[in-house]
């Protein structure tokens, strides 16, 4: 009887004091940091007033310089398309070389290192590097996004290949097929659909990033947008932002259509 009572009194869940202390410390630190950085309610209210003025100056959007706007948008789209085309083209073999289930480690680790390098910098940092290396203009933007694409699709593609069934690969190796033929017949059919998905997603990302690389002078609409910011040209800025939204929505619509074709 006394044993049953003891059992009832025992807590069903253990109290983990170290975890509780950690949560408490985290909350304390957040409060301290907010205080230190002057994030306070009063500061927030001042910010709101400022934001209202800013928004008011953006309306109505000024589309009077639409020719400049169109030129910039076209350049942005061109950067995205060229970068996606080359990015996809290069990431296909690099992703393949990085697949550890098909190739020995002395092949995969250089490929994986290259992919990791491509992923290690944010596109803005790549853009700054390439602007310094090849000068202002769309070429720097294209190179930036090619490397960003390789980092992204190359990694996902390698992972997709590592998840395939190796049974057909075994069968074709047993039939004496050359390695490349094995890739074409037993590997690509298993990953093609996913690869098209990655590529269209990357095109989407490239389109959004190509509106940004212009901020550091790597071509596209970003440069004009940054200039509008600096000249307090907020109504033109609103026009630029609206047209970027339109562009991204349009590409979303097109990519849905393209994916439907391949399904």
């Amino acid at each position, binding site marked *: 009887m006394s044993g049953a009572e003891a059992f009832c009194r025992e807590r069903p869940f253990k109290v983990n004091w170290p975890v509780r202390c950690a949560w408490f410390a985290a909350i304390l630190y957040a409060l301290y940091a907010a205080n230190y950085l002057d994030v306070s309610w009063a500061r927030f209210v001042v910010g709101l007033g400022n934001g209202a003025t800013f928004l008011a100056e953006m309306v109505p959007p000024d589309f009077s310089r639409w020719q400049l706007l169109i030129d910039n948008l076209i350049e942005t789209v061109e950067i995205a398309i060229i970068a996606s085309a080359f990015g996809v083209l290069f990431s296909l073999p690099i992703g393949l070389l990085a697949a550890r289930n098909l190739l020995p480690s002395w092949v995969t680790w250089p490929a994986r290192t290259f992919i990791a390098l491509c992923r290690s910098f944010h596109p803005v940092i790549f853009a700054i590097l390439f602007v310094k290396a090849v000068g202002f203009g769309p070429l720097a933007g294209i190179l930036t996004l090619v490397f960003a694409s390789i980092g992204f699709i190359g990694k996902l593609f390698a992972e997709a290949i590592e998840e395939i*069934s190796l*049974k*057909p690969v*075994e*069968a*074709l*190796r*047993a*039939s*004496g*097929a*050359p390695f*490349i*033929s*094995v890739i*074409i*017949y*037993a590997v690509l*059919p*298993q990953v*093609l659909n996913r690869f098209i998905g990655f590529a269209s997603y990357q095109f989407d990302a490239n389109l959004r990033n190509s509106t940004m690389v212009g901020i550091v002078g790597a071509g596209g609409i970003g440069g004009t947008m940054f200039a509008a910011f600096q000249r307090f040209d907020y109504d033109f800025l609103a026009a630029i932002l609206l047209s970027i939204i339109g562009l991204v929505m349009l590409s979303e619509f097109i990519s849905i259509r393209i994916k439907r074709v391949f399904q």
Partner: protein
Amino acid sequence: MTTRTGNALAAQPERSLRVEHLVKAYQPGKPVLNDISFEVRGQNSVAIIGPSGTGKSTLIRCVNKLIPPTSGAVFVSGENISRLSGRALRHARRKIGMVFQEFNLVERLTVMENVLCGRLGYVSVWQAWRRTYPQDDIDRAFALLESIGLADFVHQRADSLSGGQRQRVGIARAIMQEPHVLLADEPTSSLDPKTSVEIMEVLVQLSEVHRIPLIINIHDVELARRFTSRIIGLSQGGIVFDGPPAELSNDHLKTIYGGEAWLQ
């Protein structure tokens, strides 16, 4: 077409497989296969029986060097393939057809593409990429699919077929290689009893028509007795029985599988 193939075959020396003192040890000192020797010639069908984990699959994969043997030699129609590597090994593998337990088809390709995969060792990468196979290969593939009852499924994707149909495609792919020996690794284990019998019929019949020695790993002793002319019993990595099905007694089965309750 049969006569043409027949004449061509008559001119060739008899197709054969000879395994000599084959040893495979994944860990040194612990051989999975220990000194295996046997020979199969002409239109003979041989069943290899034995308990799971006794190295049947390893044995079959040592023949085409999908698994490299530790020592010993394998001869296909007289050619020693155990020392080959690279291109020479690929060319030798064309002479060894293989049928798998789980079919190992490319699910997303059509039946015809899967069958023509058997010719990948003969066509260049460029031809393979553009799907331009010699007309002779295509004619043979159509005839073969017709003969095993898959003429209506030529353009269907492999993943739309039933198990028995898939295994037929797998067999057709192996036959397309014009092999000198046909290896089947548990070809009926993923199939129901009726389909298993049909698949064994197809295998034996095709091996007889094309005069290809057939080696089947199988754990169904009754199917082995019914369809093959010779049985090799493996136990603990060694051959413990080698002879016609009529000579395979319950005593032999006890030696091969151990225990006896299952024989009642």
